[in-house]
């Protein structure tokens, strides 16, 4: 089995079949919508801050491939509870990893590095992170 196949088998299938965070947070939650014009996939990420400003609630809705759904779900899982700065850092590290940067520590996230060779697909993986970055930095213009 190659790296992409094992990414699918170990991470993507689980998180795309039964994504825990594929929920709408409803009115009042800040939202950012990103689209991959190459393939038409799109995702909307929503969040609410807790009293200390950390990510208290996060969810997404998405239309697209298993990579997008799994990446969105994993993203939500891994940033829940973080404050803005740490979430932003993680988003940047994830995106940097796929742009041939260093692998990040969390193994499930790191396995997405298998997509480095797939320019069109790596955007599906980074799309939710890009939405998160916009939300955390307050720059709401999603650069999809």
């Amino acid at each position, binding site marked *: 089995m190659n790296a992409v*196949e094992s990414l699918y088998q170990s991470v993507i299938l689980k998180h795309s079949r039964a994504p825990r965070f594929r929920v709408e947070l409803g009115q009042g939650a800040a939202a950012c919508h990103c689209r991959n014009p190459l393939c038409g996939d799109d995702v909307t990420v929503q969040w609410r801050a807790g009293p200390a400003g950390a990510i208290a609630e996060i969810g997404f809705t998405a239309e697209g491939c*298993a990579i997008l759904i799994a990446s969105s779900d994993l993203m939500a899982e891994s940033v829940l509870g973080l404050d803005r700065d740490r979430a932003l850092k993680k988003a940047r590290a994830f995106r940097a990893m796929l742009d041939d940067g260093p692998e990040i520590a969390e193994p499930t996230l790191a396995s997405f590095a298998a997509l480095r060779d797939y320019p069109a697909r790596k955007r599906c993986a980074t799309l939710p992170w890009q939405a998160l970055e916009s939300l955390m930095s307050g720059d709401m213009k999603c650069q999809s």
Partner: protein
Amino acid sequence: MNTPDLAAIRAQFPILSEKIYGKDLVYLDNGASAQKPRAVIDAMVHAMEHQYANIHRGLHWMSERTTDVYEQTRDLAAGLMNAASREEIIFVRNSTEAINLVAHSFGRHLLKPGQAVLISEMEHHSNIVPWQMLRDACGIELRVAPITDDGELDFPAFEALLADGKVGLVAITHMSNVLGTYLPAERVIQTAHAAGALVLLDGSQAIVHRAVDVQTLGCDFYAWTGHKLYGPTGIGVLWGRKALLEAMPPFLGGGDMISSVTFAHSEWARVPHKFEAGTPAILEGIGLGAAIKFVQNLGYDAIAAHEAALTEYGLAHIGEIPGLTIWGHAKDRGGVISFTMDGAHPHDIATLLDRQGIAVRAGHHCAEPLMRRLGLNATARASFAAYTTYGEIDALVAGLRRVREFLA
């Protein structure tokens, strides 16, 4: 084509011996663009190494010889389509430019507000967007003929849309790049003409697989693109009836398309040069000539027979895979098979096949309205060429079964 023939054909395509991730390349994305035979590569290289200069106005050896070879392609293209004259062949970048040229020079000048352009539900964006732009700029109505669930033109609906006589142009695909459907072109053309409409056929897919005879068809414009017919990128053909082309104003202005220029006024050159502004795609024209000869040497009969058999084989074997749906069941169809798989997004299918060396396309295939008609966002698509083998289809079927194990 029998097996030894096929091996000889494949040997003409250097790229077919490439390996992808250590696996033999199985290139089933021919509908997007075909690979290039040795003859095309050699023709372009020969020009660049031995015989190249700008054409049409040069009075020296290199320019005259280059002009000759380039202009021979016009004869070849006229022969390929059985055009009444070489002057009906206009070189463009691709089908997209061909259709835009008609939308501008014919649409904006010979259609009148109140008239309509009629397209179908299964058009490529290249045969939708130019007409939308025309509609929005010039008040020409845009009508859309529906298709049946099998992916055929809904003929009664098509006739009804022509009934009020307002349609000035039917612009329709000769073969769908998603469903593989071949249009009953002669019937469409006769019906359109009877209703007072001219007909443009988007032949981007059709001319790759079967002989096209514009005089027998009776159409008014025919657009196609070199890179799908084993030729280089950057060159395509718009064929039009000479009288129509003569009545149309030019599209782009510049060198080569004028016969005289003063600041007050310019006189246009005769067709086809009126529509060919600036330095043409010279090397690409030369390459396209070699591609046309390649196709003519194989012969459309052999190509069509081979691809028909492949398609039948492909439909049967791909269709057997559990959970897999094939889209498009027209009676007359060519070697393009679109499918979806339960529980698997087409993009994921494409990525997993790719790791096995198999190239298919996945997405909306530049036909979003058709996707919407089918209730889909995307399909995966395998498309065949003259060099496609049964073994490659077997590889695809095995690959899809493996994908299914993973995803479904």
